[in-house]
């Protein structure tokens, strides 16, 4: 009885092993490739295995059945080692192999050498016991391994997830940074453009200031030229009359020598005056051309007295042309022995013009409120002192208050009402004298009484 039980146990064991292995193979297939014809076939095989077991239970004496199992197991072994995809099942094979081998050995002996079988039965059973222990041990080990693998896999997946999240976050941040950078770059470009526009505007304003001063000159110049031209015309005309008279006198019988001599003298004088006034007009035109030419001028030895005198009258007539109720006494104390200075004439002319215009403006402003006894006066003086040539422009206007004094050389600073001054005159003056000509500019003033601008320039050696 125990033999049959024992054999039954063996069969059941083999059945279980087979079933287990088949199901394992199926699972592997499933995870690897999803449902396929393999999984289907393996399902059928598992049913067959169950079927076979049932048959064996019903039919008691099936001694051949264990051999079926062995054969089947051999097939499975072949499958597992033959196909790479079933490789994960190999540890399972190792787990069951000792038990299968022991029972196989037992069955072999039982079949071929029964005596030996009986003699070794105890050993075989012990071996079987060990094999079972091995099986259980392996099962536990494999399970643990599997669990560990699973845990590892889970951990790895989590890590992958984290990594992905990080990468995504990094990409988002980079996008934000890029966006920010774009914004900043755009702002930078806008600012640069604004700066460029401001610089262009500043250049324009400086140019306008120059043009404005040229415009002021034009009225003065027109008047200045008109005078000599009138004389040229008039003296030419009157010379014509004198010639007619002379001719008449010569044609009558007895020309009076005194009269003839007078006429000739006058004619000679007239021609001289025509020449003189012609040259005067010519000089004015030349000056005007010089002033309008571009700034890159060369320094030339210049007589400051002549320059100051000329521009004083130009400024005066220019202002009178615009405001004919304006007048002022012009006083000049020009040192006749003044040495020449190396200057760019049109630049210095601009400086003098600016100083004179400011002086006239100051006296004009005072005139508006000062009453009829106020005599506006602008005085220009030159002298040679300490190796420098000094030009002083003094007006008896309202003087310069302290806060204005501090700012008046700054560009765009003006005390004139809006639209009347660019605020660049003194700034340009300061630049021309100090930076362009290594000179100095000083101011002396008393509020309500006077203002005096002093320009010092090195003597031309």
């Amino acid at each position, binding site marked *: 009885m125990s033999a049959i039980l024992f054999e039954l146990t063996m069969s059941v064991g083999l059945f279980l092993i087979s079933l287990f292995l088949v199901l394992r193979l199926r699972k592997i297939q499933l995870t690897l490739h999803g449902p396929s014809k393999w999984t289907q076939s393996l399902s059928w095989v598992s049913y067959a295995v169950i079927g076979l077991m049932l048959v064996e239970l019903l039919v008691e004496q099936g001694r051949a059945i264990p051999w079926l199992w062995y054969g089947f197991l051999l097939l499975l072994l072949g499958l597992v080692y033959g196909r790479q995809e079933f490789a994960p099942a190999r540890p399972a094979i190792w787990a069951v192999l000792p038990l299968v081998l022991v029972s196989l050995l037992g069955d072999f002996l039982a079949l071929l050498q029964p005596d030996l079988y009986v003699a070794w039965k105890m050993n075989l059973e012990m071996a079987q016991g060990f094999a079972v222990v091995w099986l259980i041990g392996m099962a536990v080990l494999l399970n643990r391994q599997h669990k560990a693998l699973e845990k590892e896999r889970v951990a790895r997946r989590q890590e992958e997830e984290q990594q992905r999240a990080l990468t995504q976050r990094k990409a988002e941040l980079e996008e934000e940074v890029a966006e920010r950078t774009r914004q900043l770059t755009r702002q930078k470009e806008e600012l640069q453009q604004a700066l460029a526009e401001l610089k262009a505007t500043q250049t324009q304003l400086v140019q306008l200031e120059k043009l404005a001063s040229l415009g002021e000159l034009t009225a003065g110049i027109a*008047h200045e030229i008109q005078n000599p031209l*009138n*004389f040229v015309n*008039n003296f030419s005309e*009157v010379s014509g009359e004198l010639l007619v008279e002379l001719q008449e006198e010569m044609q009558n019988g007895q020309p009076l020598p005194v009269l003839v001599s007078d006429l000739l003298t006058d004619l000679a004088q007239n021609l001289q005056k025509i020449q003189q006034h012609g040259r005067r007009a010519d000089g004015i035109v030349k000056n005007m051309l010089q002033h309008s030419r571009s700034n890159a001028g060369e320094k030339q030895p210049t007589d400051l007295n002549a320059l100051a005198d000329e521009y004083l009258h130009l400024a005066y007539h220019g202002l009178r042309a615009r405001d004919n109720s304006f*007048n002022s006494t012009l006083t000049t104390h020009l040192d006749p022995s003044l040495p020449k200075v190396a200057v760019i004439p049109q630049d210095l002319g601009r400086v003098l013009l600016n100083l004179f215009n400011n002086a006239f403006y100051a006296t004009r402003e005072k005139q508006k409120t000062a009453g009829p006894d106020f005599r506006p006066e602008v005085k220009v003086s030159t002298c040679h002192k300490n190796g420098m040539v000094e030009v002083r422009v003094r007006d008896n206007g309202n003087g310069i208050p302290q806060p204005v004094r501090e700012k008046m050389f700054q560009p765009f600073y003006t005390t004139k009402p809006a639209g009347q001054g660019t605020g660049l005159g003194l700034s340009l003056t300061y630049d021309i004298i100090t930076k362009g000509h290594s000179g100095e500019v000083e101011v002396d003033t008393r509020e309500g009484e006077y203002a005096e601008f002093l320009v010092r320039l090195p003597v031309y050696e």
Partner: protein
Amino acid sequence: MEKMQVLVVDDEEDVRPLFEQRFRREIRAGELQFTFALSGEEALDYLHQHPQEVVLILSDINMPGMSGLELLRRIRQEYASVPPAIMMITAYSDEENYQQAMQYGANDFLTKPVDFGYLKQKLKEIRV
């Protein structure tokens, strides 16, 4: 016929030879006598030194120091009516100057370059 005393006020010196030549016949004939002043102040001094002599004053407007209009005003303060007749001669022919001159009591307003024919005509009229 009495000599007509004319005072010419202009800061340009060459005005003198010009007038003297332009009016040489009249001067030779004893019809006109010209005096020349180079500034408004000089003109006023002369007028004060020779009261009642000058019959006509020809004055430029744009002069340094006292302007011609200022001179006109002052003379008209002392002599409200002709004599002396006062004519302004100026390069600036704008309306404002003209209005002011008339307001201050000028008798005429001539623009440079002077039309001497017209001037001679005017002188004849004054004489009469």
